[in-house]
């Protein structure tokens, strides 16, 4: 198993030298005869000298290696210039693959590049329910310790002050009871009014029946919540007789009903109808199934990881269970059938226990998605520390298992996103990377008003591009911008358009990330605008993996969807590049796409960034900012060495001083 991506900044890397015995000699008492002390306690001078010498060398090495900034971008790359559009070729062939592709094998170097730096990755993992408790953010995630493939699942655990820098803790819960021996699966935490925390989770029993179990911290005063206790009354909830024993999992966070009971939701199915059922409880140990279901949608199949939470135009984050006249409720479920997370906005009636979508045409499972790429089993939690709702999701690999075994890890989390109701449209959510990620930005590069005529391709000189935060705005002809509207009735279909190489009147245009010099590999993130027969424009936001890599055993889909654009708005996208994961956010997070890419050449120093406009009829003006993103990249580890370096200096001088003292005392 690969060791964790980056050293924990709260515990700077410890060097083994600190644990060594330096041969410390206590100060000599001048009244005592020197002889016995000399033979008994004093280490031999040559050894002392040797140790001091080694320390000095070690210190020197540490200072040099750690603090020298190694220039990584190619100094021969010319500053941004516009390539002659005619030279580049105003045809699809601009982005086509050359005829003879050299034979390709995954090398360790290529695979090692794939590991993300600022995304949460503890090794092989699936995700679970995050919570904020006593000053720490906790992430409990589905972890498969045996191999980089799904298997026997336990609860991994990590904590953070800011959800960006993580400290890994021991496994929180293992498969050590008959009721979870086949898997400690997804669960949720509920914080009770007295700040007590309880967890309800799904266990797969020795007969593979899915049951719900109660657990709580062994020591509630431990802010790190390291140890957990499973209630002896487990399982506290077993599947009702009318549903399949293997279709009963992922209980939600509970909230208080007007009657004063705790209510939670579980997703399941009856034939092909996905449903969300409600349970009420006083003590989390005995449950009453409610007669009315929260909601159901025909033909959607099993609902996993159901999530249910309030939103409003006024507030950015509301605690589960808040109700009021201006409050809408979001119902979300992960569709087992198509591996996508769907949500819908609607109204919840606490008295009847029913939730009704605002627009039944885009009901749960058939309408909007959190993310149009690889994004599944997501969950939100209410962060009472910053009064916001935060969304986490599991992102799997889309390469071959063979590669995963070779590189030693599989799966990661997307960056945590705040999720809130779009105050302008009211009909979709907005997701945005949490503001704490701004802290790991550096090396700002700004480009203003780059004019991109049809067929343009502009390289951007921003240094290394494997870890980037890019914010770009596109200005188009006013006529078009004013015609853009909230897309209605247009199918969400970037794949149908054929990718960034297919030219249209009004698109595609955007960025090429993780692109190599001759563009044999590149990942376009782009907009394209389509005008329908009535003259109504729709805007699509897509990420195209079809040319992301010359390797054939990786996913090459094109992901995306329409994005609502309001009158007068510029088109904007934010792209986070972190090695093999690319996350895109359009129009402030109205439409999001997470992509996994596995380039073989557009890696390390060869990964570059371009602006492009493949439209035939419009000129686009782009303004953008890029930042380097990083916790500890190989080149920025300098300051981490400062601590141990200083300690080494002090020890070195102490040893020398002691030695000098001894010399003085003896002479």
């Amino acid at each position, binding site marked *: 198993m690969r060791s964790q991506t980056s050293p924990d900044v709260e515990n700077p890397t410890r060097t083994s030298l600190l644990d060594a015995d330096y041969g410390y000699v206590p100060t000599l008492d001048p009244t005592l005869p020197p002889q016995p002390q000399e033979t008994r306690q004093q280490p031999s001078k040559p050894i002392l000298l040797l140790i001091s010498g080694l320390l000095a060398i070690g210190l020197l090495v540490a200072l040099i290696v750690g603090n020298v900034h190694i220039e990584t971008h190619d100094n021969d790359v010319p500053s941004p210039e516009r390539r002659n559009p005619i030279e580049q070729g105003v045809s699809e062939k601009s982005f086509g693959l050359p005829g003879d592709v050299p034979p390709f094998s995954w090398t360790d170097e290529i695979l090692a590049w794939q590991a993300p730096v600022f995304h949460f990755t503890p090794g092989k993992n699936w995700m679970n329910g995050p919570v904020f408790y006593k000053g720490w953010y906790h992430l409990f995630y589905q972890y498969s310790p045996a191999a980089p*493939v799904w298997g026997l699942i336990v609860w991994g655990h990590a904590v953070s002050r800011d959800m960006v820098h993580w400290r890994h803790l021991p496994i929180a819960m293992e498969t050590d009871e008959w009721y979870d021996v086949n898997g400690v699966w997804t669960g949720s935490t509920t914080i009770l009014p007295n700040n007590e925390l309880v967890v309800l989770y799904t266990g797969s029993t020795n007969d593979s029946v899915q049951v719900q179990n109660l657990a709580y911290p062994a020591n509630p005063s431990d802010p790190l919540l390291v140890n957990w206790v499973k209630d002896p009354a487990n399982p506290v909830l077993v599947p009702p007789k009318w549903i399949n024993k*293997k279709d009963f999992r992922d209980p939600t966070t509970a909230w208080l009903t007007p009657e004063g009971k705790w209510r939670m939701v579980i997703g399941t199915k009856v034939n092909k109808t996905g449903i969300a059922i409600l349970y009420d409880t006083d003590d989390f140990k005995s449950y009453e199934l409610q007669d009315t279901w929260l909601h159901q949608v025909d033909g959607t199949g099993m609902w996993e990881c159901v999530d249910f939470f309030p939103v409003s135009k006024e507030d950015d984050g509301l605690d589960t269970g808040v109700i009021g006249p201006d409050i809408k409720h979001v119902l979300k479920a992960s569709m087992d059938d198509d591996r996508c997370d769907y949500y819908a906005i609607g109204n919840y009636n606490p008295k009847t226990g029913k939730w009704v979508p605002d627009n039944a045409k885009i009901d749960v499972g058939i309408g909007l998605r959190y993310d149009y790429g690889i994004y599944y089993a997501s969950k939100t939690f209410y962060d009472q520390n910053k009064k916001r709702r935060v969304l986490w999701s599991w992102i799997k690999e889309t390469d071959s298992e063979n590669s995963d075994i070779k590189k030693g890890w599989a799966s990661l989390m997307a960056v945590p996103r705040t999720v809130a109701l779009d105050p302008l449209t009211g009909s979709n959510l907005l997701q945005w990377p949490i503001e704490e990620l701004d802290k790991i930005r550096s090396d700002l590069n700004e480009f203003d008003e780059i004019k991109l005529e049809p067929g343009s391709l502009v390289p951007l000189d921003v240094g290394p591009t494997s870890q980037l935060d890019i914010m770009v705005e596109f200005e188009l002809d006013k006529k078009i911008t004013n015609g853009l509207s909230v897309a209605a009735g247009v199918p969400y279909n970037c794949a149908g358009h054929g990718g960034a190489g297919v030219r249209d009147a009004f698109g595609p245009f955007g960025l090429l990330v993780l692109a190599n010099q001759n563009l044999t590999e590149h990942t376009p993130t782009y907009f394209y605008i389509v005008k329908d027969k009535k003259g109504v424009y729709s805007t699509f936001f897509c990420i195209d993996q079809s040319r992301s890599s010359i390797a054939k055993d990786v996913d090459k889909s094109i992901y995306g969807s329409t994005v609502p654009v309001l009158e007068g708005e510029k088109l904007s996208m934010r792209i986070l590049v972190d090695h093999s994961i690319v996350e895109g956010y359009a129009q402030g997070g109205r439409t999001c796409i997470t992509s996994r890419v596995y380039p073989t050449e557009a890696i390390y120093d060869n990964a570059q960034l371009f602006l492009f406009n493949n439209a035939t009829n419009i000129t686009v003006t782009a303004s953008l900012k890029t930042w380097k993103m990083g916790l500890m990249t190989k080149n920025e580890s300098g300051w981490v060495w400062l601590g141990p370096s200083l300690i080494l200096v002090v020890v070195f001088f102490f040893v020398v001083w002691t030695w000098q003292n001894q010399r003085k005392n003896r002479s």
Partner: protein
Amino acid sequence: MKYSSPLTILTTLLLLHETLYSTMADQKFIENTCKGTPSPNLCLKILLANPKSQNSDLTDLALIGVAAVEDKGLETIRQIVALKRSRPKLKPTLNYCEKAYHAVVYADVPSSNEALRGGLAKFAEDGMADSAVESQACERSFREHGWVSPMTDSNKVMNDVANVVRAIIRMLL
């Protein structure tokens, strides 16, 4: 009890009829299942080869399918080992193929079995999808290095079997 008594004969006939009927029903179930796969004949061959298929529900049929993938994977690994001796020039590519089939037998198959037993069929689907990918990657790697593949049949069989089992698993979702 007299074996030739009318009652005995009647009971026996009824039992035989029942068994025949239920066997026919099971057969129909297997046939219908296989119709929903890309290679119905291959599917029937795999499932009927295992006598347990007669009393199987869909999950059990899927498990029989995964066992077939495992058998084929092991057989192919043995073939690769033999080829490494007889065709030493192909060793680098054969090594790659060996790792690919290791992933199938030692990662995808156990994961799929566990997922099917636990009721999380989608992970089993991922496992079978990957098995097909690994077989294709192996086949392609010969071409890419300019060799004629000595394992085309095996790779094709693995690809086809994995896709059949994947289709069966999809019916569980």
